[in-house]
């Protein structure tokens, strides 16, 4: 489903060059629930951005569904991002000027779907994260956990085959975190969604099928 081959990524700022990913290869099969672990700054988010097609590698190849896409142009990448991938960011990234419902509808705006159907799907996604009652609220009127659940609803509203979650429980207390884990687990079991999750929490990582460990931009076994 997802194959990352010998990917290198380095950032250059003025004088210092930081290598975020150094020769990383990962293969994630369809329907897997994988977690990525490693110390802060080891390149977890960078790897997630590569898989989610939000960033381009300096070297290496990225395959999604056997399509090699790292050199695709903006116009061809956009529909893949839209249809195949749902992304949950480390820092939510909700639009404060839009209601919860409109935030969840956002990915559907870039598909050919009627407004009515968009609404129905968004409410359905909100139902999955038990937030229907807050549909008309605005993000800044919600708690951190609720915002995270809105972000999850937005990531799953388009029914993507791949869900990428960058520390989805990082900002939450353990009760809230467990609730989110249950939601992800359900998606993986019931909807057969492939999930890649970054976490610092060993307990939560143990709940997944496989753990990928990163250190200083490289895989460790």
């Amino acid at each position, binding site marked *: 489903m997802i194959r990352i081959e010998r990917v290198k990524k380095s950032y250059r700022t003025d004088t210092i060059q930081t290598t975020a990913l150094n020769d990383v290869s990962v293969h994630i099969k369809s329907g897997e629930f994988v977690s990525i672990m490693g110390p802060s700054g080891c390149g977890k988010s960078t790897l997630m951005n590569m898989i989610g097609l939000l960033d381009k590698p300096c070297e290496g190849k990225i395959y999604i569904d056997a399509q090699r896409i790292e050199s695709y142009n*903006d116009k061809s990448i*956009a529909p893949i991002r839209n249809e195949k991938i749902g992304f949950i960011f480390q820092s939510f*990234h909700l*639009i404060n000027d839009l209601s919860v419902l*409109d935030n969840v509808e956002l990915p559907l*705006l*870039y598909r050919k779907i009627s407004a009515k159907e968009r609404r129905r799907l968004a409410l359905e996604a909100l139902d999955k994260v038990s937030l229907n009652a807050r549909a008309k609220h605005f993000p800044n009127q919600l708690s951190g956990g609720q915002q995270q659940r809105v972000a999850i609803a937005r990531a799953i509203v388009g029914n993507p085959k791949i869900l990428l979650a960058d520390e989805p429980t990082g900002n939450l207390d353990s009760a809230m975190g467990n609730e989110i884990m249950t939601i992800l687990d359900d998606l993986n079991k019931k909807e057969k969604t492939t999930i890649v999750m970054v976490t610092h929490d060993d307990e939560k990582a143990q709940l997944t099928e496989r753990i990928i460990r990163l250190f200083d931009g490289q895989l460790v076994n």
Partner: protein
Amino acid sequence: MFAHIFKMMWQRKRANSLIIIEIVIAFIVLLAVVAFIRVSYQTYSAPLGFEFDNTWSIEFEPDIKDREKTGLTARQTLQVISQLPEIEDAHTMYFPPFIEASSSTTIDTENGEFFVLSTAVSDGAQQAMGMKLLAGRWLNESDNGQTIRSVLINKLLKDNIFGDGNAVNQLFDYEGDEKLRVVGVFEDFRQMGEFSSVGNYMMFRTDLDNPKSYYRSIHIWVKPGTPRAFEEKLQKLLHQSAPNWQFEVTTWQQLRDEHIRSGMVVRIIPIVISLFLMLMVAFGLLGVLWQNVTRRTQELGLRRAMGATAAMVQMQIVFELLVISLMAITIGFLIAIQLPISGVIEQLTWSIFFQSVAISTVIIMLLSVACAYYPSLIATRYLPADALHYE
């Protein structure tokens, strides 16, 4: 999609109304400057009604105490210099062109009161100046000894008093109980030059044979190519003819140059101020619009992460700003239109107003589109991962 954009704009109404205010101000300032330039240009380019090539003005200090002696001396002088081979024609004129002096009066008619400037010239001066006769005839000897004085009027005054009707041989009330007879209508005679406003004008006759006629300048039409040095010869002759008088010789070209120069000096200050004002407003608008987009770099990155193409995101930004500037221009238009409605500024005609509105609208729209297009182009050049980290 449109519903989404409008919803978003409504939620951002605070920020957007600031932008609208900024654009309204920019639009009104721009409109004022464009209209001012347009009105000035209209005035400046309106036909002068006469030619000024190869024409020289000879002004003298007349002896006010003895009008008759003054007239006699002036007449003799006119005859003497007319003999010179360099001089093709010579006439008297009460107020020469390109100076800020003229006779003025108010004429009371059925159509209202009109402010009118006038001068008096000797017979044939109109042809010498290349003035254009639209109806009737010029003044001549046949106007001698009439109980009702003859007068020439310009087209504007004719339109004001008589409308579309015929003016020739018609009478109108002049100062006191006097009536004047129109014998001819000329295109115009903008005595005070290109910078003066277009207005009503009348021309009376100076009868050189009448010892009571009075004038204070003589104008000569020299052969083309006559050098400026000819003045020396002329001055000698003038001095012989009237030894006690001082004569000042200037070409009409010089008078006009001086008129243009002083007209420019008077206008340069408001022009500089308004250009400065426009620049300030333009930079302010540029800054506000530019910041409005860059501040949203994260949002734009998010939209692309959600599957929007860079082009779609850019279109949204441009569309938003187009709607905002259209709203602002509408508000600015509704404010600005009060001026031509009230009619306070006479030269601000509807056609000039709407022309200026059209020009200002196009400029503001282009500025807005550019201020949406370029920063959003820059914002969408980032990879979504970088845009999402943009602060």
